């Protein structure tokens, strides 16, 4: 007989926080981009790029800090591709995001064969070569910080304006394209940090498709949180809790794991359909902005 306390106890809180960390970083990253009007389905791919680059550089140099820096640079580069395609060439944002996600299923596997002779993973790091827990603190600090930036600074006001009504922002003298570039790049930094945390913080190597859909879960949290930083944080914690419980129940309780893993996805669909509250995505989300010339 198993007790409920085997599943629900103090250490569950710890694992919830650890599992929620990459979701928070990626979801808040997505928030910047989507608040500025650029859909960021590419979170998954950017996370993978950060995870792989971080693990590969940490393995080559022995320094997790160099790994983290490299991961952030990779995230910036990938986000720049997304931004240029969506903003400059006005391509379909969902299609570009999907392409980036597909790209980073392939790139890590391709490079790991050439550079590490493996089929998709990087060499194992020593325990002391992993990143310390500071990304967890960053994740929890970035939420109030983002709240403040979004609602109490000029930058935040402009960001939201660009996502709600780019024409009005433009008329008001805001450089729509520049704001959007910055927003997408910020999302790239944060999503890559999330990936680096997965690969060289929580684990000690990159494995094939190690994000396993966390980029999409982060996106789901963003929608559930109605593009609001604090509500998004709560959604991430909830999904982290679901994952923590599902890991604990493995082999202990005879409830199939598959069903617990489905919870975030089903919940997102229910919320999107408007059964729980209403969703208010930024008004100009997904629309390229064409400056009027006269």
């Amino acid at each position, binding site marked *: 007989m198993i007790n409920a306390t085997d599943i629900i106890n103090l250490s569950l809180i710890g694992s919830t926080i650890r599992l929620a960390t990459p979701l928070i970083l990626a979801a808040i990253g997505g928030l910047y981009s989507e608040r500025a009007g650029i859909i960021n*389905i590419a979170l998954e791919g950017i996370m993978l790029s950060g995870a792989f680059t971080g693990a590969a550089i940490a393995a080559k140099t022995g320094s997790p800090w160099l790994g983290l820096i490299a991961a952030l640079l990779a995230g910036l580069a990938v986000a720049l*591709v997304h931004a240029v*395609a969506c903003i*400059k*060439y*006005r*391509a*379909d944002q*969902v*299609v*570009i995001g*999907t*392409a*980036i*996600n*597909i*790209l980073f*299923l*392939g*790139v890590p*596997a*391709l*490079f790991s*064969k*050439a*550079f590490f002779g493996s*089929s*998709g993973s990087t060499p194992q790091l020593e325990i002391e070569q992993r990143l310390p827990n500071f990304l967890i603190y960053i994740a929890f600090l970035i939420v109030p910080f983002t709240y403040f930036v979004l609602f109490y600074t000029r930058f935040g006001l402009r960001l939201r304006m660009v996502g709600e009504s780019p024409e009005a922002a433009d008329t008001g003298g805001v450089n729509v394209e520049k704001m959007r570039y910055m927003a997408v790049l910020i999302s790239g930094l944060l999503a890559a940090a999330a990936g680096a945390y997965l690969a060289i913080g929580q684990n000690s190597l990159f494995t094939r498709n190690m994000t396993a*859909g966390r980029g*999409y879960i982060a*996106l*789901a949290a963003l*929608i559930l949180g109605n593009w609001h930083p604090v509500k998004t944080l709560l959604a991430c914690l909830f999904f982290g809790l679901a994952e923590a419980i599902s890991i604990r129940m493995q082999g202990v309780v005879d409830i*199939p794991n*598959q*069903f617990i*893993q*489905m919870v975030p*996805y*089903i919940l*997102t*669909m229910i919320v*999107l*359909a*408007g059964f729980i509250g209403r*969703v208010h995505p930024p008004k100009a989300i997904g629309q390229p902005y064409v400056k009027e010339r006269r």
Partner: protein
Amino acid sequence: MQRIVDALLFPLLAVVSAFLVGAVIVLLVGDNPIRVYEIFFASAFGTVDGISYTLFYATPLICTGLAVAIAFRCGLLNIGAEGQLIIAAFAAAWVGFTLDTSKWLVIPLCMIAAIVAGGIWGGIPGLLKARFGSHEVINTIMMNFIAVGIVSYFTQYYYRLPGDPILQTKPIVEQAHIPRMNAILAPLGIDFPAWLPLNLGFVIAIIACVVVYVFLWKTKWGYELRAVGVNPSAAEYGGINVSRSIVIAMCLSGALAGLVGINEVLGYRYRYYDGFSAGYGFTGIAVALLGRNHPLGIFLAAILFGSLVRGGLFINIFSDRVSKDLVVVLQAIIILFVACEAFFSFLQKPSTGGKS
């Protein structure tokens, strides 16, 4: 003539550009791009075996390409073909190992199961979009994960043979096997190697191309669907039921993705095998974009991607630097270039103002 040139020019540019970027990546990982591409195309098109494998790998991509395209034509992006084909393949297998009757009954029932299951799985996000306005992109992504979960649950707990270490169902009955190409071509006097996996599924995929063409351009429903895709408000103003078109488009999209289950389960593996799809649903997006959402273009694009899959298997063997993952990378880059059509705008003649 000008129309054909225009239709072919951008996809060709996109493919060539992607191959150039791919060549740089091959150089980066330390192999010779010319040698790599030579292996790719020699293995895919050099022999009868190669061509038939290329067509076999192209079959699921024709189906998913059509699936994505029919939704695109209605202004919808179906990222859920992957989930739809997984559910469909499982449904086909379920009928195949549950019903032990004559082949004249069990084969059609398996096919119907695949088509209906895929159609329902695609129809749900369509219905949610039509009824509640919730975005089909998010819902189809979510439903991909739900499909994987449900099917792996039933496979693991109910339909796996005891002691089987592989996550797959028990085999379907022998009557449910659809004929392979050698059985189809034998009455015509053509001698085709019996061990090649190309099967009736390929013929069905070609028929699907024709059906989709006729539906989209020769029927009222197809016309309405395209009208909604061009401009939903104008379509509504013109008296078209937009909601109905959205639901129809998504149901058909899912049903077309479901055809993959026929090729895979009834024609090749003869069981449901967890994880059988090498991202066919996502490659379908690349196929549809490259094929410009037209059945003929999709057919050609699917063959290109099928040849890449075939070549990838050989690259894995013949290169110790490059792996078959180069194929996935090329796919992604092709999507990037096709989606960024404006990138090639420097090649276009300067606009003369109006529509010429």
